[in-house]
């Protein structure tokens, strides 16, 4: 038997359209009985106490896909992952709407939780996306500032 290179287990998509988290998660487990744990993370747009009309998500086309694929490849090398999906939206997103989805399927829960959290931490600090606020009073708000706490969250995966 030929030795084929293993296919990417975590699919990556960058899109303007909304996604269906449940359909994505179900597709990972359908017709198989080796998945014991599925962790789904959905990141949503908050209205920041009512002041926000929308977030405008700018991205670097091409690099956004590549960088999330690199994060996914690292997750696959660190945890036994049976399947996964990472979807990041761009464009104008209203409060309550989805921004990002990470789903990880594994035999065991610790791997699924860790890989999903790792993906989110790395994606937040490495994927080329930027959020600009649009305020309810019609004004264009500021660019969202990167948080030290996100860098710290990503850094903790280096110790392991």
């Amino acid at each position, binding site marked *: 038997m030929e030795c084929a290179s293993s296919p990417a287990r975590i699919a990556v998509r960058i899109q303007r359209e909304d996604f269906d988290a449940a359909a994505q998660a179900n597709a990972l487990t359908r017709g198989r009985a080796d998945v014991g744990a599925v962790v789904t993370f959905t990141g949503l747009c908050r209205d920041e106490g009512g002041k926000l009309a929308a977030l405008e998500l700018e991205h670097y086309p091409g690099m956004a896909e590549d960088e999330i694929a690199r994060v996914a490849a690292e997750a696959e090398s660190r945890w036994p992952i049976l399947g996964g999906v990472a979807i990041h939206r761009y464009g104008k997103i209203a409060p309550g709407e989805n921004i990002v989805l990470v789903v990880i399927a594994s035999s065991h829960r610790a791997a699924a939780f860790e890989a999903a959290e790792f993906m989110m931490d790395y994606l937040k600090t490495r994927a080329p996306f930027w*959020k600009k606020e649009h305020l309810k009073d019609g004004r264009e708000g500021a660019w969202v500032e990167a948080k030290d706490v996100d860098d710290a969250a990503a850094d903790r995966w280096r110790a392991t």
Partner: protein
Amino acid sequence: MSQPIKLSYFAWVRERIGRPDETLQPPADVRTVADLIAWLSARGEEYAYAFEKATVIRVAIDRKHVKQDSPIEGAREIAFFPPMTGG
């Protein structure tokens, strides 16, 4: 020996410089990302404003993150942007 390089700008770096991208041919003594930022900053107010806090600027060469001491030789596209806030 220097080649024309596509420069891309994102988020407030793009807004400050006033364009999403441009193709420039830096002189041969511009060897690193830091050299390039210094050279651009001297080109005009808009660049000086975009790069006023040069250390916070993130840089990608051919769609991969690099540090500012990275050499730019052979780069086809260099992108400048603020720290990422996706997710």
